[in-house]
């Protein structure tokens, strides 16, 4: 079995936003599945822990939700990105890229670079 990594604080929200941005409105299960697929089942995340994060994003106004018919013809809650959520995603993406590039540079550093 491959080693799974824990989800860092806040990254789950970013994954949700990006997923909704790329795929449009989705229900909770859909989001969970996409995240699992994209991460290649490497993430050790309970599907259920998605819901508190969805609620937080909704209360912050980044996403909105409404009932709609699911594939199985039952009611499911569909989430979509709002305009504010879109802006948030752009900002967060920028931040994230910055962070990873900084961290990346640290990993490339070798002792001789400082002499």
């Amino acid at each position, binding site marked *: 079995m491959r080693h799974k990594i824990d989800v860092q604080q806040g990254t789950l929200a970013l994954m949700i936003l990006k997923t909704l941005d790329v795929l449009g409105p989705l*229900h*909770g299960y859909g989001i969970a*599945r996409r995240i699992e697929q994209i991460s290649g089942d490497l993430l050790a995340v*309970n*599907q*259920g*822990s998605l819901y508190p994060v969805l609620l937080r994003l909704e209360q912050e106004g980044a996403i909105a939700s409404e009932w709609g018919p699911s594939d*199985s013809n039952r*009611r*499911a809650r569909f989430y979509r990105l709002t305009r504010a959520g879109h802006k948030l995603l752009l900002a967060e993406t920028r931040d994230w890229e910055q962070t990873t590039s900084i961290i990346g540079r640290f990993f490339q550093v070798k002792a001789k670079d400082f002499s």
Partner: protein
Amino acid sequence: MRTPRRFFARLLNSVTRRRDNERLREEIEEHLALQTADNLRAGLSPSEARRQAVLRFGAMETIKEEYWSERGLVFIETLLQDLRFGWRSLHRSPGFTAAAVATLALGIGANTAIFSMVDTLLIRPLPVQHPLDLTFLVFPRDASHFDPEFSGPEFRQLQDQTRGVFSNVNAMILGGLSGPTGRADGLTVDAITQPAQTLFVSGEFFQMLGIRPSLGRFILPSEGNIPGGDPVVVLSYRYWKTRFRGDPGILGRAAYVNGRPVTIVGIAPKGFLGPTPLVDMEAYLPLSMMTVETAGNADFLTAIGTRQLLILARLAPGVNMERANVALASLGQQFAKQYPRPGEGTLQARPLRPPGLMNGPNPLPALAGLFLTLAGMVFALACLNVANLCLVRATDRQREMAVRAALGGSRIRLIRHLLGETILLTQFSAAAGIVAASFALQAVSSAVTATDLPIVFEFPFNFRVFLYTLGVAVLAAAVVGVFPALRISWGNLNNILHEGGRNLTGRGQRTRSVLVAVQVASSFALLIVAGLFVRSLQSAQHSDLGFDPMHVLNVALDPGEIGYSQIQATDFYRQLLSRTRVLPRVQSAGLALTVPLGDNTPSSEIMIPGRVPQRGEELRANFNAVSPDYFTTMSIAVLRGRDFLESDTESSSRVAVINEAMAQRFWHGLNPLGRSFKRNGDAQHTLEIIGVVRNSRAEDVYSPISPGFYVPLSQAYTSAQTLHVRTAGPPQAITSMVLAMVRELAPTTPVLSVRTMTDAVRNGPGGLLLFNLGAKLTAALGFLGLMLAVVGIYGVMTYAIGQRTQEIGVRMALGAQRRTILWMVSRQGLVIVGTGLAIGLVIAIGVGRLVAEFLVGIGPADPLTYTIVFILLCFIASAACFVPARRAVQVEPTVALRYE
């Protein structure tokens, strides 16, 4: 942006108790269904598909918890939960709730009421713009006295030379009070004349206060400079509402002040009483209209020696009191040279805050402190009682609490449950207390009616009072809640669960005993203070007034208010007097300028030939102007010489009758008859002493009697006079006849007041009013305290003995005498009561010192008061111990043994 939005969403959810449990449940259900379907498609068996779906979802409860805590604010939710829990548990024991709320409401109500009074008398600023920047100017005399009056020229110079420190300087004259009569002016509208307390103000007065009229306009800056030149009047809101029922058509109406025509131009704003906190200024006129009182004389505006103006000023922006006083000090030196006045002292500005213009020592802060202390003690008693009740409840519920704790309830959470209950209790009590306080205050307001001044003794509920009550309630919650809470945190879970709820008397009992001892002590101190005040009232009631108030009717009149001239008024009074004397059952009748123990006792500086005042000595005596037969009517004995006669007229030589105190003070027991003196400001007339009368009380019922003299009304005219009639039997019987006569002689003249002399003494400001109020207030507080203490002792004893029922049963079964057991169980209570009394004695002696200055005729260690209170409290407290004890020993041993 995001954080606040999230916060508000959560807050809203918390308050509306929105949980959306349904939504989450449905979402989870759908999620699992979809996952199961996928798993089935992947080839799992139905039950395994479902199991895997649930596994992948994760720990259901944890996720729900996270979801909910994200949904709302945990803190508020648990608080609401605590309150709901508290509500339920209070609801389950209505008896306890009612007792606790009633007790606390009394304690909180007493404090709210007392604080409302203190607020009105000492704290509440004037309802004007930036009231704290308002000042009045004085020349201080000593620590508590000052000279606040200025002449017209002084006022104008002050206006010119203080522009740097004051943005506004205004003068005012209190109508009536500056004159010798101390009576209001008469305001005639539609031929009906009623008295109105006037205030004559310079033009920028209202501009300085920064208020807006509720109707019409105020007095303009251009008005008030020409004597008698601007006949306009502004009415107070209260006066307008009560007399004209708020009729807006009153504006522009012709009216008369003391018979001189004026126009009503505006109504002052609601709630504005004028620059003093208690007396309603009912009519404002321009300063120069003061001529309506002086019969045209304008000395108050122009003469250097006539000082009648009070000066108010507003500090300029950025100037504080110290800077203003530095500037005034140098100006004051210049003033002293330019306008010499007796006495020393530099010009000063004082804040126009309660007690405002009160001259003389101010007893209010000390009184306020005293009453707040007493109310505080009642409050403490109430809190201790309820704390006791809660303690008993907590003990009874100890097992319940232990079980909760054993099931995982954290200690904090348990205490918070109890606190939720306490908070609810105190909030209900605060609400009930406010209602109780407003009733009590209404009673106090209506007690102050018998004065000639329009005194507004009202206590509107305001923000400060609300905060105070809230603070008191929070304090109550802390005191009441802390004991049971501590008990829980001390309690040892294991012991409690194993002891089966017994053997809980240890610490709780000790705490309760201390509480009861404290209650007895504070109740003792309260009763001592109440007793001292009641005794003080008694001694004031029995003090020798020097005149006999029984069977005397007073009718206050002032035909000057409808513009009568001196000749008309003199004629009116002469006829009234002669006709009154022949009414049936009238023994004698006389007229006087002022009624003893009333609002105002005029006094005058005198000069005695051959006597040079020593440094700092002021030759001053009270005076009254009276008609012949006045002394007979008042039953004031003429000791030497003669009474005034009809032959003492305006043209005959000037005469005076003096009292014993004056004879003693200025002539040292020599025969004063035939000697003479002069009144300051009336140098051309020498008053010859023709009689000496017994000392009688004029200002108040307790101070040493001051020197005083009487002059005949015929030689000292005033339009405001009071008719005194002595009757055989109740004086009310002739009221209607006298009033009919007044209407016949002068149909439109207002009757200012009709009152028996007994009533005037009992309720007059110089009479027993304050003693009555003091005695009633302290007695009410003392009674409350006693009741609370008795309930406390009784409750604790009943509970303590109830705990020992089994023990008593065993003892009796083994042959113990009833009496022995009775003594055994009540002894404990008596020890507590005794300790309480001893502590109370110490507190009472301390508090007695505090009240010493308000007592008359008795000392703060009055032995009778102490004896009575001691016996009373011993008796009642012992009874509260014995009653439950007796009940306990009368139980049959078999019943007691089975008691659980």
